[in-house]
């Protein structure tokens, strides 16, 4: 027994010797729970939100946003001008901007990064974010082979000229997204070709980046540690010495890690834990708006859901307030349109409200008075407790309010995606988190044949309005066109909005400068720790 214990202790000690020699840990280190191990740390290969968190600390796009107001502020570019037609952006790169190895950052690094992201061989799943650049789509699809024809030019080391395919008023705020980050050609090509998916350039020790922090340790599923990048142009205003990200993969583990002080904040508190924190530790709990919509798609190719009146009846018979209060414990707000309210100054005028009388009338008009003659409807969702509880609540509401029989069907994530894409469902749980700050991002989902449509719905007037809005230069008229489009969408109801997301965070009082904004953007420059302030 004693021998066994001795061996156990010795083995445990021996295996951690290298970890002990890691050096003194600074107290000025922000410790964060990352939801998952990132799929990669290559800004041109990833698609997730966790990756966004990580990469924003290491890289910087042309602009940044104010942590509090979300106003566009200079990033790698110190200034810019926009042509009158909204199509040509000319950026001046900050002369002080450097890569983490000291190489000066130039306009060419952006052009190189975008060429890399758009190369078909790299096969990035998020490359379409760059399609607003002139000819980028054609180049990405391999229809165009000469990158010189794409509207991104380095006029000289300090000047970057971008020509867009259509005026995109969100172009500047979009630059915070990792798909736009620059990469250093010599760094990429030291480890492989420009379009090598399996390159080792993102390993700690290999990666050269241009953000406020640089990668120093990447121990998968354990820790990702970034330290202050002394070559960063605004290094003087970076208050933290380092950030440590702990990929947890389990929401309960995250919450326990927060309780024990292992991490300073977590961004995904389980809804069921909210009440406890409200009662016991309200000072660390933060529930804040988030620009994402949770909604149901209707399969408009299947009777009886091919009838807009049936869809609208179903959409109107959902008591959203009750779902937000009882099922989501207040960590959601009722959604009456597809776009979340106050999205870049846009709030939908059209709406789908909870109105049982009206819903019954629509259903009767469609030929199913009091639900008679209507076949049972199935709600499909992917395996998750929240989705299940919401589906069951809606099942009850449709039965109670419309006398419609509803069954539920739970599928594993990939199977669910498959079923949804093949239109093999009646009603399916869906969500959309904005890629960039503009209602266009929501509206373009439902154009005829769009990859994100997934309802079989098609409306010529809707398509025309979205297309007109895309090329519209006048901001007021542009939003008016989008309003009209959204009105059609809600009138025909291929979707039923349910709630607008809220962020559920636990933040230690230690953390300062963390103003939570509705896009969940973190400008790590503004962060500091109370204990580290002199």
């Amino acid at each position, binding site marked *: 027994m004693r021998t066994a214990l001795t061996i156990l202790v010795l083995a445990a000690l021996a295996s951690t010797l290298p970890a002990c020699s890691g050096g003194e840990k600074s107290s000025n280190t922000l410790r964060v729970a990352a939801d998952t191990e990132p799929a990669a740390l290559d800004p041109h290969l990833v698609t997730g939100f966790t990756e966004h968190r990580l990469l924003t600390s290491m890289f910087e796009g042309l602009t940044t946003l104010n942590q509090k107001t979300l106003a566009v502020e200079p990033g790698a570019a110190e200034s810019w001008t926009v042509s009158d037609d909204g199509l040509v952006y000319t950026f001046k790169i900050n002369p002080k901007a450097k890569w983490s190895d000291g190489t000066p950052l130039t306009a060419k690094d952006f052009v190189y990064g975008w060429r890399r992201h758009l190369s*078909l061989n790299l096969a990035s799943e998020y490359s379409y974010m760059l399609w607003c650049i002139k000819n980028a789509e054609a180049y990405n699809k391999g229809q165009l082979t000469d990158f010189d024809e794409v509207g991104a030019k380095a006029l000289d080391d300090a000047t970057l000229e971008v020509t867009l395919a259509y005026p995109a008023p969100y172009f500047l705020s979009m630059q915070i997204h990792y798909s736009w980050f620059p990469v250093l050609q010599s760094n990429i090509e030291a480890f492989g070709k420009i379009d090598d998916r*399996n390159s080792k350039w993102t390993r700690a020790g290999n990666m050269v980046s241009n953000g406020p922090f640089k990668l120093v340790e990447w121990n*998968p599923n354990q820790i990702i540690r970034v330290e202050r990048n002394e070559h960063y142009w605004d290094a003087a205003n970076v208050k933290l010495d380092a950030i440590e990200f702990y990929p947890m*993969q389990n929401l309960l*583990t995250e919450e*326990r*890690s927060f*309780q024990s002080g*292992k991490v300073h904040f977590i961004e995904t508190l389980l809804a069921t834990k909210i009440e406890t924190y409200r009662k016991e530790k309200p000072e660390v709990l933060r529930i804040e708006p988030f620009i994402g919509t949770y909604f149901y798609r209707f399969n408009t190719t299947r009777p009886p859901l091919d009838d807009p009146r049936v869809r609208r009846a179903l959409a109107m018979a959902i008591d959203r307030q009750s779902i937000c209060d009882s099922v989501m414990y207040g960590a959601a707000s009722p959604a009456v349109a597809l776009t979340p309210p106050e999205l870049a100054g846009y709030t939908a005028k059209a709406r789908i409200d909870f109105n049982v009388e009206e819903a019954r009338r629509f259903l009767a008009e469609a030929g199913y008075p009091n639900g008679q003659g209507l076949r049972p409807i199935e709600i499909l969702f992917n395996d998750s407790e929240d989705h299940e509880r919401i589906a069951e609540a809606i099942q009850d509401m449709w039965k109670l309010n419309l006398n419609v029989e509803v069954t539920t069907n739970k599928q594993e994530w990939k199977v669910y995606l498959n079923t949804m894409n093949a239109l093999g469902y009646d009603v399916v749980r869906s969500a959309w988190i904005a890629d960039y700050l503009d209602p266009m991002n929501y509206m373009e989902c439902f154009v005829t044949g769009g990859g994100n449509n997934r309802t079989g719905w098609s409306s010529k007037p809707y398509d025309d309005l979205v297309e007109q809005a895309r090329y519209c230069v006048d901001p007021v008229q542009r939003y008016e066109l989008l309003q009209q489009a959204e009105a059609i969408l809600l009138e025909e109801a291929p979707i039923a909005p349910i709630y607008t997301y809220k962020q559920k965070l636990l933040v230690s009082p230690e953390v300062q400068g963390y103003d939570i904004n509705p896009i969940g953007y973190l400008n790590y420059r503004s962060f500091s720790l109370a204990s580290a302030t002199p």
Partner: protein
Amino acid sequence: MTKFILRRLLSFIPVFFIIVTMLFFLIRIAPGGPFQGGERAVPPEVLEKLRETYNLNAPLYRQYVDYLVDLAQGDLGPSMYQPSRTVTEWVQLRFPVSLELGFYALLVAMTLGFLAGITAALRPNTITDYVPMSFAMVGICIPNFVLGPVLVLIFALKLGWLPVAGWADPLDKVLPSLTLGTAYAAYVARLARGGMFEVLAQDFIRTARAKGLSETRVILRHALRGGVQPVIAFLGPAAAGLLTGSFVVEQIFQVPGLGKQFVDAAFNRDYTMLMGAVLVYAVLILCFNLVVDVIQAWLDPRVRYG
């Protein structure tokens, strides 16, 4: 003995081949694939390119043959979901952690299990039998996704003695090992009790006692060798179970082992990673079974010549 081992080793080849083949086709039958987009649609041109890059456009038999050729050269390919590391690198990175966790858990299981089992067997149907066996029953019944958080609540959050999660400091390793080992300790205890109980009733034990040997000597020298037989037989599956079944514990305690990687690979339809992980486990289970057979043959001549 050498012949016995060689014969078993040779039988691994067809077994391994069958596993590879079944696995290869089974994971491709599962709905969905590694590249189909997620909540957001991916342009068809890009998806097409991805499938081409990972040889998913070729006819199935061709993909299978190509995979076997690569496998024969020891190439498991890049991970489809986490492209910046190859499957071999992932296994090298994460398998030792699972191995380490499994080893500690096995130590926990053996130590606790043997102590409880032997204590119980010495005075059957008394309080020293009932108490450890009741604990063993509880240990079997409580799943580790309950036990883990309870231990964290007591030792990490209330008492503050041990960390909640992680795998860097030696103290990090205590709770995951205990959590994973406890259920197996319970089985070991029951098996050890049963084995010892049976052996202690036999004639040669009575003879040993009649010779005037001390009770300690009777138990350690004479009874134990026969009494541990059922436990040894259980060790093969237990060791395999500790390694493959550790994913729940890995998730609760943020342990960067292969178990979690394996489960994630299945959910992500990361074909190459999934194949790699299963093959590692398959080889491991085959080896464990062999080792157990050898130990049993060594302990019991009837197995060797049977």
